[in-house]
């Protein structure tokens, strides 16, 4: 019998959900949620009285509203929560207008700044958010309010989607690319083109020339990091600096960006103890806005 060759999706990143231990939503006065439907990943965060109660991160499907429902269901799974228990829900992200259960939509720029302020505290002034299909550099004040921002959403160079394509090409699981890219003894020159399509061709050429996968990966990630850093420099990088979005988990990108900018980013808080997940920064911000909006509506 012919053995079926299994195709491995190296780009596939882990989906996860988590409920904070020791917290009871039934004792809370205000239950809110933020649903961030990104172009590649969807995130939902449930808050009880402004504290993270549970959250989920999964891939966005071909339909934004289905993805919103799925990610929200997953965040509620095993908690006994139902949609009617929520006081207010805010949708954000690329598909924010297609979040059926949301009372309101708020831009992801505002949500990321707000979320970063919650995750790391009031000292955050610069946020680099690297999502699936865009890169944003945001300046914010001590209240997590946006002061200015710059965004690249025209091109996959330096986005999570670009990273997925290269992981697939090099056959390195996406969860490991960061570590693998740092295993090179000497940092190679960046690939010459930031265009993912051309970089792919260049990567194939380098492999053929005898470069190791690690070296090619490092060269590509160097180019990605330069591009991201340029955006941060343009908006003006002020301390404290943080990275949110999917690439905040990519140590290869984080280290290189820090190196280029000459500035460390604040370390990620302990997820198990705090639930303050930088990938869910947008959804966290949305859930916080939801709480504020609900409280405002009560005063009226």
């Amino acid at each position, binding site marked *: 019998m012919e053995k079926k060759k299994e195709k491995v999706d190296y780009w596939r990143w882990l989906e996860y959900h988590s409920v904070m231990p020791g917290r009871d939503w039934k004792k809370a006065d205000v239950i809110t949620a933020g649903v961030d439907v990104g172009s590649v990943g969807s995130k939902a965060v449930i808050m009880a009285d402004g504290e993270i109660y549970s959250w989920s991160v999964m891939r966005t499907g071909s339909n934004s509203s289905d993805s919103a429902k799925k990610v929200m269901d997953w965040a509620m799974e095993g908690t006994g929560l139902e949609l009617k228990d929520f006081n207010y829900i805010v949708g954000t992200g690329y598909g924010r207008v297609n979040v059926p259960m949301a009372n309101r939509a708020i831009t992801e720029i505002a949500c990321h700044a707000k979320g970063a302020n919650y995750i790391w505290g009031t000292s955050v002034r610069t946020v680099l958010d690297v999502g699936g299909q865009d890169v944003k550099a945001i300046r914010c004040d001590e209240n997590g309010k946006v002061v200015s921002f710059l965004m690249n959403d025209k*091109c996959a160079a330096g986005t999570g989607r670009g990273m997925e394509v290269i992981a697939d090409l090099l056959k390195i699981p996406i969860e490991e690319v960061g570590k693998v890219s740092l295993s090179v003894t000497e940092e190679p020159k960046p690939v010459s083109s930031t265009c993912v*399509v051309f970089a792919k061709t260049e990567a194939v050429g380098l492999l*053929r020339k005898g470069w190791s996968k690690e070296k090619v990966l490092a060269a590509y990630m160097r180019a990605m990091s330069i591009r991201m850093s340029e955006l941060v420099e343009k908006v003006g990088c002020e301390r404290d600096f943080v990275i949110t979005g999917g690439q905040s988990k990519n140590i290869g990108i984080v280290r290189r960006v820090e190196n280029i900018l000459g500035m460390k980013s604040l370390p990620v808080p302990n997820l198990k103890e705090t639930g303050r997940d930088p990938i869910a920064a947008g959804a966290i911000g949305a859930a916080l806005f939801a709480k504020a909006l609900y409280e405002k509506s009560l005063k009226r």
Partner: protein
Amino acid sequence: MLTAGIDMGTQRVKVVILKDNQILSRNQNFSGFEPTKAAEQAFEEALQNAKLSREDIQHVTATGAGVEMAPFSDSTVSMMGADARAGAYFFSSARTVIDVGAEEARAVRFDEKGIMLDFVVNARCAAGAGTFIEAMARALEVELDDMGSLSLKAERASPINASCVIFAESDVVSLIHREEPKPEIARAIFDAMAERVSSMVYRLGINQDITLVGGVAKDVGFIASLKRRLGMEILIPEEPLFAGAVGAALIAAKRAGRRQ
């Protein structure tokens, strides 16, 4: 006088042999992993077809993105210079040549003698070149050669993020799930490419007549979108793929003549 032009493209190598400035023979080959060998083979075949041997050719000029990989040459010329010369050769009324290849697009302005005056190049983004059409044909599961005629069936273009090949690939997958008509997706691709290419022409300033060359100049879908975008007629030579090689061979003739 016999001269030859070799155009070392990123995807194909092209060879043209001229006799007293008339095209005697032309041939092409995929660049593949060994462009030098590919070009040599294409050249030998072009010679055979014209019943000539290498010694008969007085001057060979090479051009193209991979010009340093040309198997042999007496001289080289820039891609823009070759395009300008070919543009004036194909159409005496032409003053602008647009060359859309696999990985690069150029717009070159030139005088009545085919001397380059100014140019704009896009070599940084795949969304402005032939690679885009190939990637989209794969995503749509249609033959590359059918993309153009498919797009002509559309009355409108799909809303799609066509600023980037990578984003467009993921968009196309969701559009197909939503059963969006393929012709409208194809048209969106050509419209986006035409937008990019025409912006280069506008940066140069409109200098008519405009001629379109390069591998993509054979695509009826792209031609229609570009005409619509520019709002003017575009002249297309019979074998637009060979424009660079023709330009190089013409320059070879000029250089050989000077040496005599």
